[in-house]
């Protein structure tokens, strides 16, 4: 609390230097001055203290909350819950509580990692609410502790998967001499296009898209794949969203022609709608409805980058 004391003393000094009788409530200028003094107080910017310890019963909820916070911006992973974490990490053969390490700060658990005997970190999270410098320090500390644990179990290498290359933890580890390696990526095939489109559109918040009643017919050309989805999908989107297989009675406002692979590219691989249009992989009829069609397709594109923790795969 040295920094706070120093600021308090400065506060007293400022207050004491003011004319007598005015040591009570401060004016706006004085308030700004005090805040400036506190802001520049070098002792206030002392390093946050971190310590590392092994997992104890009762840490489960804090670990899961930390993972959820660290992965909030990302998709592509299994959402963390206590039951999933318990099965995936704690009950995993070859993992003991000593292989699960936590970084603690004053405010609680700010870092977590679980390492296998071969040096592969299965799960890893650093509190994103820490400053970038603090995240880097916490990551470095946690990595060193996990490395020691892995080395004690006879591992030859240590591997950790971070959410992205721009992540402060990744940057800190690269500076510490780590080398990048190819990470896991997914392949996705759509089994139920109407169900997927409905799920994505329902998740879109904000003002409803389209005219009072938009009726879109999405026609999927046969691609010769082993999956044979219904070729005509009717999307009615006004107050209520309805995505169904369209029969001949369906009267669309406009028609989008594409194929399953292009639709999957658009949604998951984030291939630009314009590129698909240029390549003839998507078309909208009538011509006048093209802007609406493209706007609709753009809504289907997933917005989060994907992060795949090794625990989800291994």
């Amino acid at each position: 609390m040295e920094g706070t004391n120093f600021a308090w003393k400065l506060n007293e000094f400022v207050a004491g230097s003011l004319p007598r009788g005015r040591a009570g409530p401060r004016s706006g200028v004085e308030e700004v001055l005090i805040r400036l003094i506190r802001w520049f107080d070098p002792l206030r910017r002392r390093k946050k203290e971190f310590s590392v310890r092994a997992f104890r019963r009762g840490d489960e909820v804090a670990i899961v909350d930390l993972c959820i916070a660290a992965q909030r911006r990302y998709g592509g992973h299994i959402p963390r819950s206590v039951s999933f974490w318990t099965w995936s990490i704690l009950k995993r053969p070859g993992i003991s509580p000593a292989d699960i390490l936590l970084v603690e700060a004053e405010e609680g658990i700010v870092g977590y990692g679980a390492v296998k005997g071969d040096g592969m970190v299965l799960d890893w999270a650093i509190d994103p609410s820490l400053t970038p410098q603090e995240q880097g320090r916490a990551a470095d500390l946690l990595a060193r502790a996990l490395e020691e644990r892995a080395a004690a179990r006879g591992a030859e290498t240590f591997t950790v998967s971070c959410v992205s290359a721009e992540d402060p933890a990744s940057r800190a580890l690269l500076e510490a001499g780590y080398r990048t390696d190819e990470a896991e990526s997914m392949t996705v095939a759509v089994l139920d296009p109407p169900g997927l489109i409905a799920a994505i559109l329902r998740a879109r918040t904000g003002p409803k898209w389209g005219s009072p009643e938009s009726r879109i017919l999405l026609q999927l050309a046969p691609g010769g794949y082993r999956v044979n989805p219904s070729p005509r999908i009717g999307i009615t989107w006004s107050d209520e969203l309805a995505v169904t297989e369209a029969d001949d009675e369906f009267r669309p406002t406009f028609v989008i022609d594409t194929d399953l692979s292009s639709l999957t590219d658009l949604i998951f691989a984030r291939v630009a709608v314009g590129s698909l249009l240029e390549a003839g992989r998507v078309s909208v009829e009538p011509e006048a409805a093209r802007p609406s069609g493209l706007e609709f397709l753009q809504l289907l594109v997933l917005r989060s980058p994907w992060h795949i923790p090794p625990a989800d795969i291994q």
Partner: protein
Amino acid sequence: MNSPIKKFNSSRRSTDAEPTGQNSAVIRAYSPGDEVGICRVMAECHPGTWHEDSIPEWRWKYAARPASLEEDVLVAEAGGEIVACFHSTMRVLKLEEGLQIPVSYNGDWAVVKAFRGKNLTGPAWDLTSSMQRDRGALIRVGFATEEVNEKFYRKRFGSVFVPSSTVRLRRAISRAPLEGRVQELGEKVLAHPGIRCALRDRPWSVKFEMERMPAFSVHMKEDGFTLLGGDGRKPDLRVSGSFAPIAAIPDGPGAVVASVARELMFGRLRIRGLVRSSPRLIGCFITVVRRWRACSTPSEGGTMTDVQTLRKTIDEVTLELVTGDIAAQDGFDAVVNAANAELRTGGGVAGALHRAAGPGLEEECRSLAPIRPGEAVITSGHGLPNPWVIHCLGPVYGQDRPEDQLLASCYEEALRLCEEKELTSVAFPAISTGAFGYPLMGAARAGIGTVLEELPKLESVRRIRFVLFDDQALDAHVRVLEELSGPKG
């Protein structure tokens, strides 16, 4: 419970899951006790990850998983033995913040070597997809590289590769397991006369930066060598790549040098810094590579990846269908490159051949480019084990028309060039089936059909090999060859 597996076994197995012939297999759901067979199959197919004693891991992963069903695991059985297993679990996947959906999660698929290409994975895919779609799965996810997805899964399933933002960081934390092997390697390398000769003039050092291993240097003199840590003197040469090739080096005189040379040729090991620092060492390495090539039998070059072969002799010409590496076809006068119009390096076959051949190939190609679809040109083989490379530009499917005639023209032109040069053997890849998107069966018909038509006209060519990327490609070509030439060979 109304099990889809029962439905599958009763109504579909005779057509889909049970190939006709001696080695037939039936797909069924897991039942308790299958773990032993499943782990044996997994250990054979994924040896680094699974072992025969991985039963507790398997039980945890597939039997003890929350909400698991026995039907999540399918096995293929033949003669009472499990020969394949297919794991597909239902999970919830977060697509983005606020959007989670049920998905079919696929991994740990394994088919023993003898049953690959026997139509097991397709029906298993159909069955698991149908079961899990019925249970609410909207998508199906799996794990593969982009290359494998584009070559295989996209064509069959419409799958797309979704790059992740995940960055994997790695650091070596121990070098003890490496030291014994490096010691052995150093001694054997020193024992080679070519290397000893090169070291007579001056010592040199090699820095090894192997994946999964701490960097180390070997400082070599004629009379001995010293193993150093990562920070040795500035190396004459840096070697980087996977540790697997070194781990797989067999014992025996000359085996180390031969294996290292082979890995260099296949591009699994890389060398940097050699050109400027010591041309003499290049000469030494080239000598080693050439000596190894000269003394190796054709099969040595091919056995690395040639796992299945079909051979037929028609009109005194032997036709062979194999899976393998087009850049490792020792004993053939020519290999055919599935080239691009500019005859430059790239991905797939062209990339593999150019990497193995070295920059000289691209340089020679420069004056011959561009070529048009259906055309072929010939160059020398440079660093390849073949004296000649024939470069064909196949059609881009759906773009260069008529596709079948252009593809047939590639094979005709290649064989014409072989005859012109009086070559006796040639190895073809499946032209246009990679990035150019030609469907496998159609490409097989065009390729094999054209070769069969040309056979009676051939005077010098006596051996033609199709080197195919995977079992599915092999399966398609075998079917077409048998269809067009009759089952008797």
